[in-house]
């Protein structure tokens, strides 16, 4: 079975501080992992995916197969990073995604 776990429902950090949103997954094959973000009053959108190994808006995420994790990190948080973040998994060649519960990130000034 495919499962994504985001242990923190809420995360609050101060502007300029490092931020890490945790994501663990369960999947027997080789998964594709994604981070989606939903800013206030906007639709859900792709932030980054592990295949691209890219940095978007200062965020990075590394797939750790040993720990089955895909944590999202940013060294210096900005107020505009406040949003709902979802970790998602795609496996078995299917296009559908399995989402985690989401973490609401609040950046305090």
């Amino acid at each position, binding site marked *: 079975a495919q499962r994504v776990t985001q242990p923190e429902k809420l995360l609050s950090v101060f502007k300029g501080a490092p931020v890490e949103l945790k994501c663990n997954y369960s999947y027997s094959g080789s998964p594709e992992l994604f981070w989606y973000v939903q800013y206030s009053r906007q639709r859900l959108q*792709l932030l980054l*995916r592990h295949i691209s190994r890219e940095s978007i808006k200062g965020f990075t995420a590394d797939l750790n197969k040993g720990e089955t994790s895909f944590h999202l990190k940013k060294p210096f948080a900005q107020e505009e990073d406040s949003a709902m973040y979802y970790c998602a998994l795609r496996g078995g060649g299917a296009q559908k995604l399995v989402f985690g519960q989401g973490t609401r990130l609040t950046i305090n000034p």
Partner: protein
Amino acid sequence: SAVISQKPSRDICQRGTSLTIQCQVDSQVTMMFWYRQQPGQSLTLIATANQGSEATYESGFVIDKFPISRPNLTFSTLTVSNMSPEDSSIYLCSVAWGEKLFFGSGTQLSVL
């Protein structure tokens, strides 16, 4: 990227009635999906809308409750039938475009 128009954006419905949600894409796409997001919960896939054939439903969702149409490669509808307050959720249309998924703005449904 794909631009998705979903409507209605919200509705308040009476118990026992049905609501049809529309999803229009500006490009032809093979894969369209319908998700549900219950209050305080994550997104859960309802079904994959297949063009020219019946939708493929996930465990816990059935066609009688959530009939889906996919008449062409740019359009799909999801109907929430015989609604109860437990159906109060946000319903999201999603399309696969290349390796990425794009989402509609969602339909917030409240059932009284």
